[in-house]
């Protein structure tokens, strides 16, 4: 996965590409507003990342299917507001994402398309990682 960023683009649109090392070919996947904290799923099918929606001045955490483009906006609270600064990690089997924000841990299940709060606030916790698929 490659992100190309235009020089001096005031709207800060970036382009997400896929480079196939076997066929030595490049393909444009989709466009996005500025994106960071990107994390490819194991196998590379889905890209997760935090991007900024300048229309409403807020960060989103979004999933991009590397074939179809934007898949979903995830980790929204009950008011539809994205987590402030989620640190996330794909499960080794690529079926779920763990995220932690302000001491609260969340789990996004790819199959159901839902996320769950799995831990009450734990002050000082700022990163969650998978050890094995369970």
């Amino acid at each position, binding site marked *: 996965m490659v992100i190309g960023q235009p020089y*001096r683009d005031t709207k800060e649109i970036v382009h997400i590409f896929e480079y196939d*090392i076997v066929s030595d070919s490049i393909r*444009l996947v989709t466009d996005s507003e500025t994106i960071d904290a990107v994390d490819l799923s194991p196998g*590379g099918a889905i890209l997760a990342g935090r991007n900024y929606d300048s229309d409403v001045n807020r960060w989103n955490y979004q999933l991009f299917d590397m074939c179809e483009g934007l898949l979903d906006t995830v980790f929204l609270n009950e008011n539809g507001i994205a987590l402030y600064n989620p640190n996330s990690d794909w499960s080794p089997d690529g079926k779920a994402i763990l995220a932690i924000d302000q001491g609260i841990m969340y789990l996004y299940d790819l199959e159901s398309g839902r996320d769950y709060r799995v831990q009450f606030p734990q002050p000082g916790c700022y990163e969650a990682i998978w050890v094995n698929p369970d």
Partner: protein
Amino acid sequence: MFWIRTGENYQTKTNQDFGQAPFWINDDTFGYVRLEGGTRWEVVFATLGQDSRETAFEPSDLEAQLPEEQRLTRLSIALVEPAGSSGE
């Protein structure tokens, strides 16, 4: 500048190149975004113990994939992440 440490207790330090965002392709081959000639970024592949570099692609290759109306500005290579490197 980035470098690689190898050998017992990783004591052997080898300077590699001016670049950023290094990533492994397999146990012997890695890639990174290299600043070529001080002005142009490109993604290259390299093999441990060899000085040669293979250019994989450069910004113009990315620009060529954009619709014509979007080719008005030059692209920089902001980030490269290999498939299979996450969650492992």
